[in-house]
């Protein structure tokens, strides 16, 4: 009987304390800065082009083969009168978020620090009605960083 009363006491103790619920869509928790949603591409503001050269390093390292990368000659290269030092540049890039396992390996293998894990709430809220909508193409992958939504830390890791 003592134990039963003790149990009742435990719940009573909880009753008088504040609820811990967060009302999710209205109340966002602050994400830690190294939060890791899905991978996105970074934008080189100095030259106004992506960092990514389409070297296929991430594509090869991806455990689930969720990436498709195509490169092209950079039309903005120094040799053709541009101001970029990248001879090759990304042409098309798809990441299938439905398949991505968010392992961070693509970020680690990238030689150009061109890919990063999204750490904003937009990166987490990707529910769609059609799986095909989860295949992100190059403009979508670049949009986040171009809009300046990412925190600074992303390129560090």
């Amino acid at each position, binding site marked *: 009987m*003592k134990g039963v009363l003790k*149990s009742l006491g*435990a719940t009573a103790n909880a009753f008088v304390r504040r609820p811990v619920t967060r009302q999710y869509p209205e109340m966002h928790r602050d994400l830690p800065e*190294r939060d890791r949603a899905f991978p996105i591409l970074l934008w080189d503001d100095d030259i106004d082009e992506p960092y990514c050269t389409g070297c296929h390093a991430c594509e090869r390292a991806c*455990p689930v083969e969720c990436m498709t990368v195509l490169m092209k000659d950079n039309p903005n290269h120094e040799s053709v009168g541009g101001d970029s030092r990248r001879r090759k540049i990304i042409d098309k890039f798809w990441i299938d978020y439905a398949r991505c*396992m*968010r*392992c961070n*390996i693509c970020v680690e293998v990238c030689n150009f620090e061109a890919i990063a894990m999204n750490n904003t709430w937009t990166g987490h809220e990707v529910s769609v009605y059609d799986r095909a909508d989860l295949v992100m193409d190059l403009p979508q992958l670049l949009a986040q960083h171009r809009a300046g939504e990412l925190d600074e830390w992303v390129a560090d890791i």
Partner: protein
Amino acid sequence: MTQPPPVLENEFETEDIFVNMGPQHPSTHGVFRMVLTIDGELITDVTPYVGYMHRGAEKLCETMDYRQGIGYMDRTEYLANFNAELSYVMAVERLAELEVPERATWIRMILCELNRLSSHFMFLGAFGTDVGVFGTAFVYGFRNREVIQDLFEEITGDRLMFAYFRAGGLAWEVPDNFETRVREVLKDSREGLRELDGLMTQNEIFRARTEGVGVITAEDAIDWGTSGPTLRASGVPMDIRRDEPYLFYDQVDFDVITGDHGDVFDRFYGRIREASESIKIIEQCLERLEPGPIVPDRLPRMLRTPAGEVYTRTEAPRGEYGIYLVSKGGNRPHRLKIRSACLSNLQALRDMTIGGYVADAVVILGSLDIVLCEVDR
């Protein structure tokens, strides 16, 4: 004149009922099916069926290089990811003869023990639901677990699939406020343990439901190959952390928690006490933690191992999580076998359950704390 009623040998024709518990049932903890043969409320036979979650993680890892496999380890044991990753990276390290820096080892230890804590919180909550507390234990357990998961998210960037350990060390340095945050979390966990302990342990109804139920003797437990809290509840002090120390477990002081009766209550209470031991271990680790590198100086870009084989085992929250890694040389395993603690623990289910009530089956299954992803891999 009426005839006297005929005397029947068997007045009623009776037969046992088969009840399919699972694969979709609120208390099978995932997709697990057991066919109960019941005579009224008594169980006369149990046939467990597993395999609904089989995804071939072993085969997948055999087609991948060593780094890519880490993410799959998370997915086999999703309540104790750090322990699973640890087994794997330790196997690779031992084969490749990599030296892990001291700081990385201490951090690994802290994270593994925190993971044990969070896994035990999950167990306490889910077990409360199995015993019939209307969600309260579940919510309490989950809230305490969330605090720990928050910390994990700050460190690794993900709430569940951490992919943080690397062969040789860690993926990146922990945040600056790591130590204070861990201490905060420990404080919270201690309170949470007290709360769950107060809610359940001494409750007479709870004890009536758990004591003497699902008993397995030490000899049977060893023979069935059970491990972890399930084995220790039967009084076998087998704990890989102490018997075959890995990381720096030989440098910290902790008790191996064993039970006396091998019943459901011992398995439950053993976990509560084990969680307190984990807190103790983490505090010792925090004192020993010093700045330093977290990866070896010379780490090849693509890890290759010489031919050989190794079987590493770690004491995961549910028991022995082992990785048997066979390499023919090169950058990927030739054979990777995951020794699942829950698979072996589940084998003993039949012995524990027969003769009990239907309600006992639920409680016994809950006390094994199975993770079906780990069983089926």
